[in-house]
């Protein structure tokens, strides 16, 4: 329990307005958990799920490979190959749990950090690097992968997700009972983004139209240097109540619980029962991005504390203890991770710089005479240098 002062008495009961501190709290009694930090399987009355050994190994593999994407990209940034990288260290379970709960027809609206979800959608991780290297702004086809391009403006994509969900409604692809047809949207955002107007407007629109959308907030406790207390005085998941739909706080370092909760929320949405807010309670183990210096604002004690909750380690313990894996599994995965690293290192350096004239290509679907003239002028200008350095 927090040693911070509780605010308000009387009608404002302390349970509603308690100020949580980032380091002290364990997520509170409401936290949905299926696998403890010690790797113990626990059960939950509402959100349980029978996991096959295959599924469990799959989650583990996904998280290891996602971490590898992150560490490789971080290293590439250090080598000057990427301008910046948004790290996800510690958030693998939140992302894989959510990503694996999706059906092909569902649609994802990501922030700039959803590398694990992207991986679940079948996007080559190499394609994630383009934005951070500066060669493109995302090179996958959102409509083909049902995974939107990364969004840098905090929270903006949440509204896009709600609008898309309203489109799903209008297409009659909600509540038909056909598992291949009924679809939902998941909109990702951070705890900092929860303060943005767009996120709150998204809540209102979704509630008002009962849109099939899951709001998936990864509460990693920090928005660059600003702690969660700067964004909210109540646990974030409780905000949903004020907007008129359910909110659930799940252990975001527990891939099993995140999967089960997100799956249930997505199913609610597909069934036509409207939005849910899922707060995945987690911690940003790495820096905010490679340009951040968390030692200026974060206690190393906190980091040590959260290391003990590592999402990959706890599943590893569980798999081993229950004899669900052998050494060959780890060896194979190790090799797979190495190959992925190689693919990213070599592929990143080979990503071609865009041609200068390509900047004119897709400003519009139907270009304008003005732009054509600018392009032609620039082309002629560039051509005037040809042979100059021969």
């Amino acid at each position, binding site marked *: 329990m927090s040693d911070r002062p509780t605010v308000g008495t009387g009608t404002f009961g302390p349970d509603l307005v308690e100020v949580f501190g980032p380091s002290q709290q364990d997520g509170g009694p409401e936290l949905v958990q299926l696998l403890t930090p010690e790797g113990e399987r626990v059960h939950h009355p509402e959100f349980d799920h029978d996991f096959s050994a295959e599924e469990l190994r799959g989650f583990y593999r996904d998280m290891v490979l996602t971490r590898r994407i992150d560490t490789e990209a971080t290293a590439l940034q250090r080598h000057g190959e990427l301008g910046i990288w948004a790290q996800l260290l510690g958030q693998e379970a939140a992302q894989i749990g959510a990503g694996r709960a999706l059906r092909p027809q569902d649609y994802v*609206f990501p922030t700039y950090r959803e590398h694990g979800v992207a991986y679940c959608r079948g996007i080559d991780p190499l394609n994630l690097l383009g934005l951070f290297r500066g060669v*493109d*702004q*995302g*090179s996958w*086809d*959102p*409509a083909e992968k049902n995974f*939107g*391009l990364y969004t840098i*403006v905090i929270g*903006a994509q*949440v*509204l*896009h*997700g*709600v*609008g*898309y*969900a*309203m*489109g*799903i*409604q*209008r*297409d009659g692809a909600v509540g038909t009972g056909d598992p291949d047809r009924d679809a939902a*949207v998941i909109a990702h955002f951070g705890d900092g983004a929860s303060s943005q*107007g*767009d996120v709150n*407007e*998204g809540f*209102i*629109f979704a509630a*008002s139209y009962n849109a099939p959308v899951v709001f998936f907030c990864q509460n990693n406790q920090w928005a660059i240097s600003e702690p969660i207390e700067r964004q909210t005085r109540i646990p974030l998941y409780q905000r949903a109540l004020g907007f008129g739909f359910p909110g659930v706080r799940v252990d975001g370092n527990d891939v099993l619980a995140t999967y089960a909760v997100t799956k249930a929320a997505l199913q609610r949405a597909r069934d036509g029962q409207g939005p849910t807010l899922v707060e995945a309670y987690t911690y940003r183990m790495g820096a905010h991005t490679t340009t951040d210096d968390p030692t200026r604002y974060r206690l190393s004690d906190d980091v040590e504390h959260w290391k003990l909750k590592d999402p990959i380690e706890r599943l590893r313990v569980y798999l081993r203890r229950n004899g669900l894996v052998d050494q060959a599994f780890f060896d194979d995965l190790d090799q797979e991770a190495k190959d992925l690293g190689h693919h990213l290192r070599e592929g990143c350096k080979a990503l071609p710089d865009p041609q200068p004239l390509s900047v004119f*290509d*897709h*400003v*519009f*679907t*139907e270009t*304008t*005479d*003005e*732009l054509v003239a600018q392009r032609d002028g620039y082309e002629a200008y560039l051509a005037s240098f040809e042979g100059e350095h021969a």
Partner: protein
Amino acid sequence: MSGLQKITLAKGLNMGLRKAMEDDPKVLIMGEDVGKLGGVFRITDGLQKDFGEDRVIDSPLAESGIVGTAVGMALRGYRPVVEIQFDGFVYPAYDQIVCQVAKMTFRSQGKSKMPMVIRIPFGGGIGAVEHHSESPEAQFAHTPGLKVVACSNPVDGYWMIQQAIAHDDPVIFLEPKRQYHADKLELDESATPAPLFTSRVVRTGSDVTVLAYGPTVKTALKAAEAAESEGRSLEVIDLRTLSPLDMAPVFESVRRTGRVVVTHEAHVNLGMGAELSARITEECFYSLEAPVLRVGGFDTPYPPSRIEEEWLPDLDRVMDAVDRSLDY
């Protein structure tokens, strides 16, 4: 009803919206009060009754929400037509418009389209309170990825709104609110309209070219009439499209007259007039007999309505600029 009828701008827009919704089931209307009420200006009157609440959507009072959800709808394959209730209330949606709507096609290298129309009743002269009389066109015209048009009369309203909705890029559609219920024109629905992104000579003349759009087209035409009685011949061009600009008819005219007056309600500083002046100077320098002159709103916030008639460019201020131009 016969083929021809006399309509107001409000009616033209309403008929155009209706036609667009009939032609394409993917067209949706969204905004505050657009349903039962038909919008505060009644532009969407009767549409919800005929097309249902799923296609004419009364939204929560959140402009960023309206535009942001429209982005999602467009990504899902719909063609949202968004109504911003008044010009001064577009700013809460400004981020979504300039950072999302305008950039989605570019960001996705053409894979995602944004076929969206954002309708904004703009301009002053209706005696309204603060925030109800603004002219934000330059802010949008300055944004790559947006196309910006302004209609000035009922017939254009009817055609241009349909063309904007059918267009695959996002269009900021400016409607001169003080004209909504003003003059009637005869509409021939079987006519072939001019393409959307073209300007038009609405009165020919030989002494001075007057450039206008939206509400100032009427002012310019009045000035041309007054000038005629003084023996001066003004050519008036209704720009109709602000981004892209259709400069060919402008250049052609300026080469004949050698003199230009630009008039708009928006603040002069860094407004459309500045851009027009720069382009004309670049292209027609040796044809010019006088500098390009601008007549617009002053660089002040829009004033209280009791003095708006003084603030807005009117016939006299346009005539004064014409005189100054001819004095060079």
